[in-house]
């Protein structure tokens, strides 16, 4: 059961990261830089660095999650990254910024819908990280009493 839950979660979250990377990489990188800059948190040099590197990082993370390679580390990194995104979104929404979310390319306003979606993704990523970190249980045979052998004459 746990194995299937991990499989489902890593494929789902991995696909989301792959899609997020695709929507950013198909457009000019400066377009994503505009979205990052609109959060008004980072200085310009950091905005440019994030805009150039984050889509590739998301792509790599998506590939690693889908493949299942180094799952423990990848799941923790995914949960951490989504936690950062979610925190930034909540803070910006609370500050009353009417900006693009920047999650899956331009044109998607930051609002309750995007917060709910990213919050759900974060929850799923945390569950995946917890499941991946738990030590795998050994499969032991059920404790059955030995059958009584009766000898008949």
């Amino acid at each position: 059961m746990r194995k299937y839950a991990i499989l489902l979660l890593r494929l789902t979250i991995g696909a989301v990261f792959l899609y997020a990377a695709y929507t950013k990489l198909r457009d000019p990188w400066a377009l994503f830089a505009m979205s990052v800059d609109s959060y008004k948190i980072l200085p310009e040099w950091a905005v440019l660095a994030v805009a150039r590197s984050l889509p590739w990082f998301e792509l790599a993370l998506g590939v690693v999650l889908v493949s299942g390679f180094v799952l423990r580390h990848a799941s923790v990194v995914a949960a951490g990254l989504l936690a950062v995104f979610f925190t930034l979104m909540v803070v910006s929404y609370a500050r009353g910024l009417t900006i693009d979310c920047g999650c899956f390319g331009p044109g998607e306003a930051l609002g309750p819908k995007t917060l709910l979606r990213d919050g759900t993704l974060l929850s799923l990523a945390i569950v995946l990280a917890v499941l991946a970190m738990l030590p795998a249980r050994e499969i032991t045979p059920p404790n059955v009493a030995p059958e009584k052998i009766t000898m008949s004459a």
Partner: protein
Amino acid sequence: MLTAVFLGTFVIVGLAFAENPAKVTKVMGTPVSAITIEVYSDFQCPKCKFLHENWMGPLIRDYVRTGRAYLIQHEFPLPQHTYARTAACYACAADRVGKYGEVCDVLFKNQQEWEKDGKVDQTACSVLTPAEAAKVRTLAKDPEILAQVQKDVDLGMQARLTGTPTVIVTYKGKHYPVDVMGSYSIFTRLLDSLH
């Protein structure tokens, strides 16, 4: 005689071109430019004021006047803004007398005043000569101008705008909606990367 005619023509054309760069109109630049920038704005929206006062000047100077971009300014008065449509009509009317830029400037500059008292006419006409003001007042109520504003709104609805201001950069047939809360310098990187 012929030389004088040529010289005269040359001077007149030269003056016309010398005067043009100072003018800000609803549509600016050359349509054959590689990049088209469409701006949808509402005169009562604070973010549109920010865009107009921080982006439009440098954008026109760096990209439109240099022939690198074709700029189209659309009116998109939001229904919740009581005087925005009237302001849009005045701006469009002012465009017909060659004072679009001036009227836009004064409307955005005094946005907080006229949105309270509704004195759009007084604000818009403050930068016009009496003759221009009279013409603009008439034009602002002209069905043709009202239709022009509505056409801009319809275009915005077709483009599925979610709010104002919206800047759409078009390059090689592809449309890029831009988040204008970012800085102008990063926007220039986008435009430069498209060339």
